[in-house]
């Protein structure tokens, strides 16, 4: 569809984007506020970023969160890629409907249900809650997102290429590693990024499945937010937003360059 945007279309875009970005922009601006009162501008200052560096609880939580996100994103990307391969290429196998429903359901399942159900599993098995339980919970959630991202790329990939490699004598795993994998690599990278940020971001599931030793950053932020708005939260939020935005834009630009390089 293309006829050029009308004035109405432009207004809709401007208002929509304003709505999406204004709160984030305000949050970033006020993270540089000298005053402790979030809504009173007291001049430009980076003191809240400095005070973040001295907040050991917050730093410890950030470290736990990054580790959980890294491990769970890696695991979820591997499992998700395998699941996508199964869904796209294995045709109709028994239990395919069950499998595909298990991969799509967590995408929309309310997080409280996922968190509660996983917690009950850990309790009934008798595992102490901590790093590994959060990691497993996040892998389960993000594996589904990873599957969908890789699957979307895989359906448009011409399987004949891999078959050709096999006809030329490559064993199946080699044909996959040398032909298919490089081709779906951007999607795999995007899947990892998505899994990583979702894990970084999750409050509800982590609250249910983490233990005393593994308080994640969103849990810390949440308990601080409940006490009220503070410029320190603005500062850590700005750092997180900056981190994620840089990553997303980098992956996006990388994909764009590839696409223009190999039409």
């Amino acid at each position: 569809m293309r006829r050029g945007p009308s004035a109405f279309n432009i207004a809709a875009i401007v208002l929509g984007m304003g709505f999406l970005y204004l709160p984030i922009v305000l949050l970033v601006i006020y993270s540089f506020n000298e005053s402790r009162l979030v809504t009173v501008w007291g001049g430009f200052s980076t003191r809240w970023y400095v005070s973040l560096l001295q907040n050991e609880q917050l730093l410890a939580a950030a470290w736990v969160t990054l580790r959980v996100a890294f491990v769970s994103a890696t695991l979820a990307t591997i499992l998700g890629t395998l699941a996508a391969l199964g869904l796209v290429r294995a045709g109709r196998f028994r239990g395919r409907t069950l499998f595909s429903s298990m991969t799509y359901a967590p995408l929309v399942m309310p997080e409280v249900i996922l968190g509660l159900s996983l917690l009950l599993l850990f309790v009934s098995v008798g595992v102490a809650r901590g790093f590994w339980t959060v990691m497993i919970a996040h892998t389960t959630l993000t594996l589904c997102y990873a599957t969908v991202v890789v699957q979307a790329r895989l359906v448009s990939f011409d399987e004949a290429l891999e078959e050709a490699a096999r006809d030329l004598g490559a064993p199946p795993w080699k044909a996959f590693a040398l032909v298919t994998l490089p081709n779906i690599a951007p999607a795999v990278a995007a899947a990892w990024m998505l899994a990583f940020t979702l894990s970084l971001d999750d409050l509800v599931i982590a609250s249910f499945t983490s233990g005393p030793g593994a308080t994640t950053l969103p849990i810390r932020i949440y308990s601080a937010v409940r006490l009220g708005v503070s410029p320190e939260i603005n500062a850590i939020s700005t750092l997180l937003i900056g981190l994620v935005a840089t990553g997303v834009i980098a992956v996006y630009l990388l994909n764009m360059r590839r696409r223009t390089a190999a039409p």
Partner: protein
Amino acid sequence: MSVTGAPRPRRPWRRLGRPRGSSSWEARAALLPYLWLGLFFFVPFLLVAKLSLSDVVLAIPPYAPRLDWSAGLPGLIAFVRALDFEAYARMGQDGLYLAAYLSSLKFAAVATAILLLVGYPLAYGMARCGPSVRQALLMAVILPFWTSFLIRVYAWIAILKPAGLLNMALAQIGLPPVDILNTDTAVYIGLVYAYLPFMVLPLYAVLERQEAGLLEAAADLGCTPFQSFWRVTFPLSLPGVAAGALLCFIPMVGEFVIPDLLGGSGTLMLGKTIWTEFFSNRDWPAASAVAIVLLATLVIPILLFQRQQTKMMEQR
């Protein structure tokens, strides 16, 4: 073929209709995520169902009966006998649960309708821009989805609170202050804000693929722009409308963070109920029973969503 020597039709990974087919190691590889989801997604649901039939006790973990595997079959029978529907009965008697249930559905339904009204013009406008602008706008819609949900909800607290940025702006232009934070209005704002990308993306996907020729044909046949929108563009975009609505409605019914941070003490939603029962009241059976009721309500929308997803993936 495989070395397991199983009878051929039993092999789930055997591809049908592809005689020159690969050995389909892919299907075997998929067993791994399949196992993972079975263990960490499917089994836990059975546990929630079981727990919803248990009773609260003062112990760690705070529920009974617990299945004693060493007691064998008699132990199992005793265990099953001790299960009851008490948690559900309590839910039926306490009007607060019913109120939370209805109010969750109302919040989700109204917010989905507002999202459609806000998201459709945005997606439509994006689809009518030139290719490079479209790409940039698409990126701009996706980006907030990647940034923390919690942080984006938090950003609204500073705007909506009594001495917040909104009231400061209102005072500047000489308008009286409004008291929005901790009301249902704030919850609606938060829901619409947080879920807007989920509504815009599927709508944009269908609108972008629509052929300009269709609208030209409608215009040639004498349609006014509004008529051609209402009779051509909109009906053709219905799959996107359905996808967006489901993608927003289902998780919103069980939303916790938004009603908790932006809503007031009178804001009732099931996600919050589950959280409170679990963390504050330590009533695990009640939390499980609410989760089961929530899930039962969402089964049909979730199945619709899955059908839609599968169709979309196969259409490509």
